[in-house]
């Protein structure tokens, strides 16, 4: 019996056609892979073969912030020096760069270059996903090596190997709305203790009836300008406010550092006292809005630039972006030094970084090293400072007259503060930020005593740390 409608022959002919097209596509892709696998093409420049480098970061030549524009300028200069090396930018949120890189590396698809911060460096190093850059750096001209700062050389150093080239070296400094404090009769340059800081902020904070937090009937729901805030949402990458400063100031040590990386000091009496102050800023002194526990970094930036807070602090590396968005005269935002608990000296600056690292599985390591070297050049460093408002990494750049500009006035202040008292932010083997923020939320939202919350966080951290063999702890 002849079948009606559906013809098996026609069906198979169609399938063969589809399979043929699919096969051609696969062959085409395979040819490209084979070509890439076979290696470089003609047209080498500067002794380096042609390549397309994938560069993953949260500020790239694709965006529109000050740092993005700086990247774009450097990229354009790079293209003219290395016309056969193309940078394929991959803009990625900073909170997720670390895990995305490690997942991609594990799958063999990591970008050639990625940005790393203290939050994700150690994990990437332990995974074996980063190339040791020390041999390449040591071949740089002597003058270049000496021009880069000590902080630059110390960053990303593990067991004698250097895995990172810091692109941004920065730290926190407090930023004050001078006019608000002047109106309250406070000279911000004289704030030397955390208690003075608290009292100064209380003078600035006013509710809808003009009452400040020390006055009866103060209604925090009608406050328009708060004293201080920070990004403190779960999952935002935040930690307990000023925790690193307190450990330096009151315990004379890094929060989490070699050789053992334990968190036993989290429940030291000095730390409990210090963190209690941070909790009281919300609950008792009323200088910090409770809503800050839902802020991510963008929310916190916007709160300050829209005039919602009298002081702020985060890395100086974001200042250029803030200035562009400020809804008050930028000159009103003045940098100052950190207070300390006893006020006997100015507080420490914690040196943070965003650094370039090269994937150990990259097929274009030579090209990636050339790109890294270019990005660390004096020209690129100047662009980063001039366009993006970044702290220079090179001594020769620091003396450039652009740092006399008001928008870059923090550079000299930072330099001075860092020389007096600074400490690098280490990259612990276990990411503590989520443990910190959970503890902080418990203290503020659930009235869990500081000692208990910090104790639980300490125990959780130490338990995770114990799972790492001691010989694998970074030194």
């Amino acid at each position, binding site marked *: 019996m002849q079948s009606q409608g559906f013809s098996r022959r026609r069906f198979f002919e169609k399938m063969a056609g589809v399979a043929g097209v699919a096969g051609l596509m696969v062959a085409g892709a395979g040819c490209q892979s084979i070509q890439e696998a076979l290696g470089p093409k003609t047209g080498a420049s500067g002794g380096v073969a042609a390549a397309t480098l994938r560069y993953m970061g949260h500020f790239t030549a694709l965006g529109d912030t000050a740092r993005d524009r700086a990247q774009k300028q450097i990229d354009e200069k790079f293209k003219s020096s290395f016309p056969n090396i193309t940078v394929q930018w991959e803009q990625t949120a900073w909170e997720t760069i670390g895990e995305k890189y490690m997942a991609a590396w594990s799958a063999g698809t990591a970008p050639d270059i990625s940005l790393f911060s203290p939050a994700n460096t150690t994990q990437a190093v332990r995974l074996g996903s980063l190339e040791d850059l020390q041999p390449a750096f040591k071949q740089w001209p002597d003058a270049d090596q000496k021009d880069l700062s000590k902080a630059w050389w110390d960053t990303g150093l593990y067991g004698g190997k250097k895995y990172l080239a810091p692109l941004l070296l920065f730290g926190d400094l407090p930023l004050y709305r001078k006019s608000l404090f002047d109106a309250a009769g406070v000279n911000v340059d004289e704030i030397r203790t955390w208690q003075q800081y608290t009292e100064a902020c209380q003078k600035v904070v006013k509710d809808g009836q003009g009452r400040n937090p020390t006055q009866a009937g103060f209604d925090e729901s009608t406050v328009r300008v708060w004293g201080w805030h920070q990004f403190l949402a779960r999952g935002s990458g935040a930690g307990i406010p000023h925790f690193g400063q307190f450990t330096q100031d009151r315990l004379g040590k890094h929060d989490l550092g070699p050789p053992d990386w334990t968190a036993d000091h989290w429940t030291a009496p000095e730390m409990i006292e210090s963190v209690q102050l941070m909790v009281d800023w919300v609950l008792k002194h009323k200088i910090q809005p409770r809503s800050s526990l839902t802020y991510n970094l963008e929310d916190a930036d916007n709160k300050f630039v829209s005039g*919602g807070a009298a002081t702020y602090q985060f890395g100086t590396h974001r200042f250029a972006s803030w200035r562009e968005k400020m809804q008050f005269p930028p000159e009103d935002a003045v940098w100052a030094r950190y207070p300390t608990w006893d006020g006997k000296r100015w507080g420490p600056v914690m040196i943070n970084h965003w650094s370039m690292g090269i994937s150990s599985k990259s097929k274009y390591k030579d090209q990636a090293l050339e790109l890294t070297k270019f990005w660390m050049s004096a020209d690129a460093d100047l662009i980063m400072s001039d366009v993006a408002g970044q702290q220079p990494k090179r001594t020769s750049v620091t003396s450039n007259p652009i740092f006399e500009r008001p928008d870059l006035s923090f550079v000299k202040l930072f330099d001075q503060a860092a020389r007096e008292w600074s400490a690098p932010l280490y990259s612990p083997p276990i990411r503590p930020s989520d443990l910190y923020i959970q503890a902080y939320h418990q203290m503020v939202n659930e009235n869990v005593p500081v000692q208990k919350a910090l104790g639980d966080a300490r125990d959780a951290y130490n338990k995770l740390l114990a799972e790492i063999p001691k010989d694998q702890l970074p030194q």
Partner: protein
Amino acid sequence: MQQTAITAPHPVARARRRQLDLLPYLMIAPALLAIGLFSLLPTFYGMVISVYRVEFVQLLSFVGLANYTGVLADPKFWNSVRISFTFTAISMLLSVGIGFALALVANQAVRFRGLFRTIALLPWVTSYVVTYLIFRWILNADFGLLNALFVEALGWPRIQWLGDPNLAMACLILVNVWRGVPYAMVLLLAGRQGIPQELYEAAAIDGASGVRSFFSVTLPLMKTALLILIVLTTITDFNIVVAMLVLTGGGPGTATESMSLRMYYEAFNYARMGSASAIAMIIFAINLALTLVYVRVLRTEKYY
């Protein structure tokens, strides 16, 4: 009248028919291959990882059930179980209930029915991440539309929508319901439209009111569609990560940290793949149990 002679099958035709019996299997082979590669194989590998101590992606040593006992002994895990079940139960009930109501409305021969259906579907076609990001802004206590346009306009103090543990969970559920209702509506509308109109006419002739028709005709005949929807919605809501990750990060504190989010943090924050896989297997077991319940309940007497 011409008759077709009945003859014995030709040997060649018999052989061709045997060969062509493979055709159905060949046709489903690509789908089976995809399911095997992208579903079964990762699940099996997850089971393997869950009984190993894993360093990033490297299997180090076999630890048996140590990862499971570690997870089950953690009070935060049980908190995340409670949150997952609370979120799923309330979210599913609201999605199905509101979806059902909208399906009944969408089935009416009313004016602008097409426009209504189109608008009702919009939340469903919006990307998950976009949806939750936008709501994060709307619910922001300081800058959000909700406080600015409604709360403060009424003279009330700002509400910490995402800062209060109970309100954060409520917001999470409501946003998820907003997004899930169209899907429920579409599925149930299809089920409703599959019920023959004659049954309603017969019920009307017998004197049944609208409400009686609903309980005696609509509901029983939509049981299958409802059960399918309940199971799919339950599994989807139980496994969801994006909602918590984008809207609250699991906070404030651990107030909205579901099992899936806990698994995400274990895997990508602490690089503890073994523990994360153990949590994944527990989630898988719960999903399997729910599916088995569905299969059992679905073996019902057909009404027509």
